[in-house]
């Protein structure tokens, strides 16, 4: 990735890029193999589904394609049993933890107790609880203790499902020939649905730190961790940043499993895979990578997994941080990963063949890959009829265009291309600017910066004094600035319309990028009018067209042009005509619905 300094040096001295092969999402040999065996997978449509486009692609060079294909086919044949592999990996991760560093669980309970006390600094750690007790096994008391964090666990569950059975029910006459102590506890004493058995102390510590309850028994070098999470959290509420008039009114909260359940609740598909990945050496933040295994392109899943696993940081707080770690070009203004707080949007993206990442503690789920046309879609577009959606989109595009170009066009026209302004309007503008002492560039920069300040203050200001901001903005920056002859009234209109346009951008991150770029266009327009604006557009487009999000060109399906049978890119087709999944995702199964879905219309 390199530092900012490296980036500047590269740009200034035209340094050749490192000789590396960029990841490009394309049909891989595994997919071809799948296609050839499509009937095995009950999907006859796959054969027709791939590479219909004539889009730009990177092709492998130098090696015999058939060899590569055979190798890949062999390699990927095993991956077909992915669910089992995942299961195995999960088992390795959760039950054994053999690769974990640190000491093993001791046979002696005193040693275990001392180790835990020291590890958790129990003498000063107020919320760390150690509860010692005896378990009656064959009428013999056996020493044991449990550990947990107060507040992280559900107290009732600990009392009723762990302590009560171990302390009281163990006295009952249980009919069992089980000799192994751990097996006995597991089979007869702990009515707990999620139990981890481990020999590694680190595994116990990780479980307890994430709302588990660790159980140590004397004479056994295995510890048990029961999942008894029960911390306070927000319930599922209405979305706050992605409101819609029509469509589901649920949003994610900060709990990983609630969030994955919200998605699963919508999709109800056993092929929806929820792969757990831990990120953060210290924070051990649980994340889930979600995808529908028989739709998504395997290369995409591999790439996302590779990027996630390569992150080595101490703490991961939020999905916003994670986004910055996995995006393709950190210095590109345009976002390369999208995020949403709406489960329905995640479900729709997964159904298209995208990958989602849920981060514990974040109510925003990441979606990838992303393209600019998709970022311009509102959540509501899916749920309203296509003429309305297209009208909204048209208004939105107009707003976006105005938010980027209007101030720059004002500068260009008033300074360089006055002949374009009709005489009446020209006179009106001149009359309004007569007493303004500043050139129009200073005038517009003053107002734009004031507007940005207002917007920033609006986000930070505490709720009760919010209305004050409106008064300051409207009265002081608007009316007073005009009356003081600092700016002309027409400029207030320009800035206001620009602001309105920028609010019409559905994606907040994209709106940010446009807000910054707007200033570049203003400067360019002040230098050379329309030529400056054209220079800006050209540079902007060249940078955008060369950018990718997880191997997908960020302007797809427009540049490069890909097959349009899934067309919901710029304008929305009627929903019954959207028969294909987006071509640029190269999904395994790109047929979304049958060609003629309104069968009731047939005689």
């Amino acid at each position, binding site marked *: 990735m390199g530092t900012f300094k490296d980036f500047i040096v590269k740009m200034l001295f035209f340094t050749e890029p490192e000789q590396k092969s960029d990841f490009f999402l394309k049909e891989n040999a595994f997919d071809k193999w799948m296609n050839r065996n499509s009937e095995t997978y009950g999907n006859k449509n796959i054969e027709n589904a791939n590479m219909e486009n004539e889009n*730009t692609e990177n092709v492998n060079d130098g090696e015999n394609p058939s060899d590569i294909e055979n190798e890949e086919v062999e390699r990927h044949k095993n991956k077909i049993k992915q669910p089992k592999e995942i299961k195995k990996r999960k088992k390795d991760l959760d039950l054994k933890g053999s690769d974990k560093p640190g000491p093993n669980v001791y046979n002696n309970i005193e040693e275990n107790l001392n180790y835990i006390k020291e590890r958790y600094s129990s003498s000063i750690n107020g919320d760390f609880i150690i509860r010692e007790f005896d378990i009656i096994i064959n009428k013999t008391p056996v020493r044991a203790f449990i550990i947990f964090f107060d507040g992280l666990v559900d107290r009732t569950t600990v009392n009723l499902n762990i302590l009560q059975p171990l302390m009281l029910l163990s006295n009952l006459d249980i009919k069992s020939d089980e000799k192994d102590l751990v097996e006995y506890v597991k089979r007869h004493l702990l009515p707990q649905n999620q139990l981890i058995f481990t020999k590694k102390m680190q595994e116990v510590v990780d479980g307890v730190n994430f709302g588990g309850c660790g159980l140590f028994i004397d004479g056994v070098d295995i510890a048990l961790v029961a999942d008894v999470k029960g911390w306070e959290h927000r319930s599922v509420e209405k979305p706050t940043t992605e409101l819609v008039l029509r469509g589901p009114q649920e949003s994610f909260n900060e709990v990983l499993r609630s969030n994955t359940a919200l998605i699963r609740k919508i999709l109800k598909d056993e092929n929806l895979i929820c792969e757990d990945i831990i990120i953060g050496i210290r924070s051990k933040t649980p994340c889930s990578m979600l995808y529908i295994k028989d739709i998504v392109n395997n290369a995409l899943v591999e790439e996302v997994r590779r990027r996630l696993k390569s992150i080595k940081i101490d703490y991961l707080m939020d999905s916003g941080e994670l986004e910055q770690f996995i995006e393709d070009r950190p210095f590109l203004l345009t976002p390369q990963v999208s995020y949403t707080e709406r489960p329905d949007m995640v479900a729709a993206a997964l159904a298209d063949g995208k990958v989602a990442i849920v981060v514990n503690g974040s109510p925003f789920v990441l979606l990838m890959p992303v393209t600019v046309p998709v970022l311009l879609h509102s959540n509501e577009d899916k749920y309203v009829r296509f003429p309305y959606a297209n009208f909204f989109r048209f208004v939105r595009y107009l707003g976006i265009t105005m938010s980027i170009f209007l101030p720059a066009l004002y500068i260009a026209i008033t300074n*360089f*291309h006055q002949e374009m302004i009709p005489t009446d309007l020209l006179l009106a503008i001149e009359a309004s600017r007569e007493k303004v002492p500043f050139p129009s560039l200073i005038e517009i920069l003053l107002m734009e910066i004031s507007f940005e300040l207002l917007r920033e203050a609006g986000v930070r200001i505490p709720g009760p004094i919010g209305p004050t901001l409106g008064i300051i903005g409207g009265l002081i920056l608007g009316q007073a600035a005009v009356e003081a002859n600092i700016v002309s009234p027409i400029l207030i209109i320009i800035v206001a319309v620009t602001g309105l346009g920028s609010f019409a951008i559905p994606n907040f991150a994209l709106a940010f990028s446009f807000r910054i770029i707007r200033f570049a266009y203003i400067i360019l327009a002040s230098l*050379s009018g*329309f030529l400056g604006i054209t220079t800006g557009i050209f540079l902007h487009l060249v940078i955008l*067209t*060369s950018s990718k999000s997880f191997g997908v060109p960020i302007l797809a399906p427009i*540049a*490069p*042009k890909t097959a349009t049978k899934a067309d919901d890119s710029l304008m929305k087709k009627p929903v019954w005509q959207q028969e294909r999944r987006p071509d640029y995702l190269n999904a395994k199964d790109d047929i979304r619905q049958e060609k003629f879905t309104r069968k009731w219309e047939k005689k």
Partner: protein
Amino acid sequence: MERITIGRWESISLLVMMINLQIYLNLPRVLAEDAGTAGWIQIAYSTVLILIIFTALSLLYSKFGIKDILDVSNMVFGRFGEIITGIILILYLFFAVSMVLREFTENVKIISLTQSPISFVTSFFIAGITVGAYFGIQAIARVAVLMVPVSVLAHFIILAASSQYFEISNIMPILGNGIDAILINGVEKIAYFSSINTLFIFSPFLGNKKNLRRVGYISIILAGFFMVANTLAYLLVYPYPAATENFLPIYQLAKLVNYGRFFQRIESVFVLIWAMTAFLYLSFVFYLIIHTFKKTFRLKYQRTLIPVFAVLTFTVSMLPQNLVSAIEIETKYFRLVGLSVLSMLLFLSAAGNIALKIKKKRGNV
């Protein structure tokens, strides 16, 4: 190692935009000077001629797959031949980029930046082509895809809006300066399609040899259509003597757009589209210079060449004293150079075929 390819539609967009740049420079006026009121027939004739030449060229070239002309010259004349061909191509592209840069800069200066020094205006184009070449052929081709609809819309707006001034008597006599002028002078007008030469330089990027022929035909036909339509509209609006005097023919046409009291004098808006076309032309040709230089001299890297060639392009574009001398150089030499390179392509393709046959014979013996 990854190899970059560009799609069919992207290549077509790029070539159409490149050929059509001539419309914005001075094509309609030159045609009016040459063939009189039959300028539009002359360019239609040239389109047919270039189609025939391209057919011959692509047939000769069909055995070379997606090899570029440097590979073909290497095959025929060895490494020395490749270097000579490379140098000729670099000089041709360099000449094209410098001349178009100067002419276009002068045009922009006349239209909207009358007070600015020419070097200031040129620096914007240099910045654009430098960044374009840095990000490569894929990015430039994709921008062309985005700009083609806008450019086509602009063409139609100008044609539709100027249609109120169409006067059929302006294109009478229909054969203008005579059939001889059309047929004989029309041959050299195929030089306006000389951007098609670049197809044989960037052919390896097409990825598929079938694309080469399709891209060529569609580009020529589309560009020819726009050339004919614009020239016809220009000649329909301006009577013959006036048509030979406008330095910026299409700008003059756009200047006439006038609907009501409010919708008038919008010609500056077209600067956006024209400048974008120029950016695409210049950055693409500039990229090809860098690419050809790298390939000819078998260099490992090409981005390091960008600043050097940018400074050279800037300097060479400053050589003509003014717009008139720039146009003079262009009309005198540019067509000649374009035609020469086209002939060189034909020659090398024919020689390549002969070389292949000889090789085959020797192999059989």
